[in-house]
């Protein structure tokens, strides 16, 4: 009877495990295998040259373009983790209270994430750029007498990456907002009522009830933010037009460039594996950090 039960259980999960193995595990090992070859992605795989870990060695010690792209994506991720997620958290906190039109705010905040990255990039390019846009940002700055800040925001190497990071945050904060809001609504009202009865002020309620209970949600949002932001690239193409001499380069753009333009398919696979490892390590550190914070509280 017990064996039958076990077999039944496994039968139920078999389709999901099968799909996971076929579409995730097998391709991962295939990509890892390709990363050990010098191959142009066209000729027969049997004619590819085995180079061992040479591709990884080249990435780590010689590919400065790659590490620059990782650093750029790291900066965009940092802005998203701090500015974007703080904003989303505060707005979710506000919308979880009984405020007027909170339903309307929820809809408005959720509009940017459902827009395509291409559309968001083009709209913001139109708002920011002067030659092929409305130049609204510079016009507002000039109107306010802040002429010293008027500039070509998207083609100035000092500002382009920050503009990308801010537009990315604008587009992304709705997701974080929604998850935080859902998390806030799972906290039982009784906890707050008991705290009030005990005379706790708003800060104490936040510090001792809301924040600790939201830590799992914060970990989830942080990990999703890292995974999403480190892999963004469409927004950059539509907003800045490309890598801008490396100033707005990000890892996925580099992988695409290597695959398409240099025909080094094996090397592109090695870059992909490298990015995967970076993401796993970053997510793990993030997870450990927030777990530590929760334990301290």
């Amino acid at each position, binding site marked *: 009877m017990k064996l039958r039960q076990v077999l039944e259980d496994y039968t139920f999960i078999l389709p999901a495990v099968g799909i996971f193995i076929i579409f995730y595990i097998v391709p991962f090992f295939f990509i890892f295998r390709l990363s050990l070859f010098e191959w*142009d*992605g*066209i*000729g*027969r*795989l049997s*004619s590819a040259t085995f180079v061992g870990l040479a591709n990884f060695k080249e990435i780590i010690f*010689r590919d400065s373009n790659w590490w620059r792209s990782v650093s750029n994506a790291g900066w965009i991720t940092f802005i998203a983790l701090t500015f974007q997620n703080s904003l989303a958290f505060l707005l979710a906190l506000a919308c979880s209270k009984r405020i007027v039109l909170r339903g309307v705010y929820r809809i408005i905040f959720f509009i940017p994430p459902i827009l395509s990255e291409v559309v968001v990039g083009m709209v913001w390019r139109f708002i920011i*750029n*002067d*030659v*092929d846009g409305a130049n609204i940002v510079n016009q507002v700055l000039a109107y306010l007498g802040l002429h010293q800040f008027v500039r*070509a925001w*998207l*083609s*100035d*190497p000092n500002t*382009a990456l920050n503009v990308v990071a801010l537009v990315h945050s604008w587009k992304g904060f709705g997701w974080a907002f929604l998850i935080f809001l859902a998390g806030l609504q799972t906290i039982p009202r009784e906890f707050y009522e008991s705290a009030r009865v005990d005379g706790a002020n708003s800060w104490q309620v936040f510090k001792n009830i809301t924040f600790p209970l939201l830590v799992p949600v914060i970990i989830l949002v942080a990990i999703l933010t890292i995974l999403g932001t480190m892999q963004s690239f469409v927004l950059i*193409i539509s907003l*800045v*037009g*490309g*890598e*801008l*001499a*490396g*100033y707005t380069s990000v890892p996925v753009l580099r992988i695409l*460039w290597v695959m*398409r*333009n*240099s*025909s080094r398919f094996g090397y592109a696979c090695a870059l992909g594996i490298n990015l995967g490892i970076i993401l796993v390590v970053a997510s793990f550190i993030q997870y450990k950090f927030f777990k530590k914070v929760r334990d301290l509280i």
Partner: protein
Amino acid sequence: MKPGKVNSVRGGILLLSLFFLGCSPPEARKKRIVIWHWMTDRQPAFQELAQSYQAQTGIQVDFQLYAPSEAYSQKVRAAAQGGNLPDIFGVLSEKRDFASLIKAGYILDLTPYMEEGDSSWRNRFFPQALAVNEFSQGNTYGVNPGIYAVPIDMVAITIVYNKNLLRKLGLDSSQPPQNFEEFLDLGRKIKEEKLQGLVSGWGELWLIYCFAQNYAFNIMGEEKVLATIRGEVPYTDPAWIEVLRLFEEMKNSGIITSKVVSMVNKTAEQIFANEKAVFAFNGSWCVNVYKGMNPDLDYGVMLPPRISNKFPLLVWGGAGSSFMVNAHSPYREEAVKFLKWLTAPEQQSYLVRETNNLPAIKECKESLPQILVSFSRLLEKSTHPNSWDVWESPLVNETLARGIQAIILGKKTPEVVAEEVQRVKERELAKKSN
């Protein structure tokens, strides 16, 4: 016989008929040639031609469009790996990839067909159109000599200028700047009029590389450019630094701004079509693009203004789009026949009329509109990396183009960029020699 049994026998016969119909040899089935391409603007004209071909021969031709071009390129690669290439397809990448497809046995050698009879098919084409599809004896790609694709149109990449805006700047609209000094002098006037000078998709690296190559040919001549690619002349040579310095001078004069580095070519085309820029660096495909964006646009074609009279300034030109025949296709003979038909004068004239592209064959040159005639004249002063027997490492090209972007952005000097490019070049040469 009982009615039930009769029905069973009828059903059996029907099933058997369907079975044998499904197993009939390919020859007995209706012939259908499948063509993959990426040319969105040409799809209606291609479909029209396919219908006409079917009416004449009974062979169905199915033009299947896969856009954008990046997605198309990936589809061709994946299909090659999966053995699913169509009867006819185009290769949208560099000659290196084209050579890999040939060496892997995916592409049919068309030389015997081209040279059939008195080579009448081969002689139909402009030599520059065939050059990019041809591999000569002892080529560095390791491909057997021959012609492996059929050009269906040609392209020339140069500068176009807006005649109205030139008049606005106080110049004769039929006399665009002839030398680089005159070109730079216009920068100040352009700034005063709050216009854009030269626009182009220099956010995409290949167009920068193309522009730099034009001037490399003008400053140091073809032999030295090719010697650099072979690794015999360093990128730190004064002639290369002079090429890089041109971009700094153009930026300082105001003929270009840093915004050009964040433009994709579609944006640059829109700016030029909206009469906000005086010049654009673009290919002859722009004729159809500008026609769609602003049918009243009055513009002319010019060579990039010369900087030296010592060597000719060569622009990039040659075959625009080409079709290859799948070597494993059961219909390869039919596919070759169709391509012969497609490149006959009548069909080429139709394509010129409908799509405003330069024809690949000589015989319909007379039917060209004036603006395409101007582009076609440049083909005599053209070259193309795919027609050279040597090729530069993509990493070197990227470092050069990104370096030029950095010069335009004011972040690097020509000397620093030249050193960076040379470092990468030496690394690539060392890799090759291992």
